[in-house]
């Protein structure tokens, strides 16, 4: 084997590798390329020492830098929390009305409240807080238990008819099927419907007013505008939790349905409840 051989055609030396007279020209890679190649190998080796890399029987080598992606996430989350801490402490210290009055705080609380809302509230109230039958629309200006930011906060904190919270909003309309006759139910339904619209049989309205005064005015008020002390809805407006019209009203008079909202304080904590209250208040119907 001669490694001194020079190829006659190209004038380039050969490597000494020969196959049936075919020789390999010695055209080495450029030096910078080779150096770069060795540097990458060295880099790879150093990397596996510095960072978690080699699989072992249980887990992998930890790497001398002590890096882990879980730690990185932890740091990033901590940094995010640290960035929020100024607002969060301010929210802890202030009432919801004060938070609503401060532009920067309100913006933060609305954003935070919206996030909390999307996780915890949309299941009943809908993603746009628009509600559905039996679940109140939080965008409108009709509030069973009060629409001031503080009242909303109270509702979120303790819930409605949530028996395991002693401060919960509590009220229950009796089932009037056992108390008044079906005829009276038809009359009172016609009367209530007439307060905010037309009814089919106007002759029922007069007697219905009497039935209402005897049975309903105690909670809903003589003028039927409701009473927030008992969560008694205003029956003269355009908003009907269980649907408008005589049929739906009669149904609710006969055997009322009662929604339950859980108390959220234990699960979310006071700060998040305040943020939620500010958010719900900002939806447009807040008082």
């Amino acid at each position, binding site marked *: 084997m001669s490694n001194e051989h020079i190829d006659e055609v190209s004038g380039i030396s050969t490597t000494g590798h020969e196959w049936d007279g075919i020789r390999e020209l010695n*055209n*080495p*890679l*450029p*030096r910078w390329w080779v150096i770069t190649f060795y540097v990458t190998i060295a880099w790879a080796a150093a990397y596996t020492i510095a960072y978690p890399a080699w699989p072992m029987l249980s887990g992998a080598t930890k790497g001398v830098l002590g890096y882990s992606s879980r730690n990185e996430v932890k740091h990033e989350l901590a940094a995010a929390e640290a960035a929020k801490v100024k607002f969060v402490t301010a929210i802890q210290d202030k009432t919801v009305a004060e938070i609503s009055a401060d*532009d920067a705080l*309100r913006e933060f609380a609305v954003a935070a409240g919206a996030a909390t809302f999307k996780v915890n509230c949309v299941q009943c109230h*809908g*993603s*746009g*807080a*628009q509600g559905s039958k039996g679940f109140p*629309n939080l*965008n*409108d*200006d*009709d509030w069973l238990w009060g629409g001031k930011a503080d009242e909303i906060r109270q509702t979120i904190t303790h819930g409605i008819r949530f028996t395991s919270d002693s401060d919960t909003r509590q009220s229950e309309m009796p089932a009037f099927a056992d108390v008044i006759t079906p005829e009276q139910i038809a009359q009172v339904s016609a009367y209530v419907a007439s307060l*905010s619209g037309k009814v089919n049989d106007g002759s029922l309205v007069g007697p219905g007013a009497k039935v209402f005064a005897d049975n309903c005015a105690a909670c809903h008020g003589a003028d039927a505008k409701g009473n927030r002390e008992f969560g008694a809805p*205003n029956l003269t*407006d*355009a*908003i009907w939790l269980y649907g408008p019209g005589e049929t739906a009203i009669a149904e609710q008079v006969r055997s009322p349905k009662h929604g339950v909202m859980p108390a959220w304080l234990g699960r979310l904590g006071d700060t998040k409840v305040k943020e939620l209250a500010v958010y719900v208040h*900002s939806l*447009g*119907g807040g008082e």
Partner: protein
Amino acid sequence: MLDQTQVERLDAEAVNSARTRQPLYAARKKIFPKRASGRFRQFKWLVMAVTLGIYYLTPWLRWNRGPFAPDQAVLLDLANRRFYFFFVEIWPQEFYYVAGLLMMAGIGLFLVTSTVGRAWCGYACPQTVWVDLFLVVERAVEGDRNARIKLEAAPWNARKLVLRISKHAIWLLIAVATGGAWIFYFADAPTLAANVASGTAAPVAYLTILVLTATTYTFGGLMREQVCTYMCPWPRIQAAMLDESSLTVTYNDWRGEPRSRHAKKAVAAGQLAGDCVDCNACVAVCPMGIDIRDGQQLECITCALCIDACDGVMDKLGRERGLIAYATLSDYNANMSLATAGGATPVNPALIRTAEGSFADGLAHFHPRNIFRPRTFIYLGAWSAIGLALLYSLLTRERLELNVLHDRNPQFVTLSDGSIRNGYTVKLLNMIPEPRTIEVSLQGLPGAEMNAVGVDLPPSRSFTTVADPDRLKMLKVFVRQPPGQITGIAQTFKFRIKDQGGVESAEYTATFNAPEIAK
């Protein structure tokens, strides 16, 4: 006047010449460009001073924009997404101005190249300017061409070490200054300079300096002509930009050939002798390591230093300047045809000269009207059209804008009195660095009133709010319409904003949705 044999013949090899072009894998042969002097060298010094001056000084220019905007004349404020250029302020959505400028730069390059060849490469390209600067340092430290060649060949000793270390140290200083100047375009220069000096600047500032120092040092000091020949795409594109009327640096072999060191002897022996005395001055000064006498070639950046070198020699010999000159291909071909009797003979210098020895009348010379060709008019037209369009758009652009986003969920809300409410996210863009009082009003939608979250006013058809300087103000606006006046499930109306202290206004057409039963 010198006799041609007295002109020193330089021992210069065109290392990148097409005749001797190296295979790509071969190690680079170093080029030791000799210092040139002459018109073009003077012009290049001037261009270098101007371009380096612009680069280093621009960030330090001040421009008063009032208390609500930075006072740096040219500033790319990436953190706040604003670009300031003297009296112009650009928001990210106005990036088309930058796109337009880039198009103008491209077409301008076409225009310049089609008229005067690769003038960009030869004079203004940062690579050329910085290599020139690095060569100044190299010459100052190590001496001119011959001294540098000698030093390169010399064994390592104390002197060589000192010279090399000084050279590279100065190069590195220039490189650091280059990288350092770059970052000042992105932040307030005096503040950033103090921060960088005290070590309190952002890590990205140091990283940028480091990267640009490395590239400047490598490209300007170590790689030099290789950047142009191997890395830059422009030499490849130029072929399409040049035509037979473009000026390029040309060796006029119609008067130079046959080149001869001993013209008198040759003439006496009955041989032909051209003007080229084969002194290699053009090769020695070439920073690209080529021999221009091989003709136009990819490596030539048309820096015109060979013209200066050759003109100097011609002056000494008492011959006309311009053996190497800016010439167009058509002029060259015409003269070549003259010198070769239409290609019938080899170059015969006698054919282009009168009996008295001056140039024959029929010789083609560059005439400025050559610049005005359909092609250059088209480039100039496109360039000006874009420029004028940008200028017009810049002078008439709105600095108060309005964007409205209708709430989709819920699309509408029924209120207790039966009226319908729609929610909108209204974005007011106050694009000047002064606070403005903006009046927001409803146009159309009879009976409707609105109120905005955070604006503590009773519902009305209009309200005013203060927009912060140079900021977007986002408002949540609720519009409600009483039940009797709703005319359809989707009514269109307009939000209108007006600057109360000025004349600017803007409108946005929005939709008001209502349920069918509320009609």
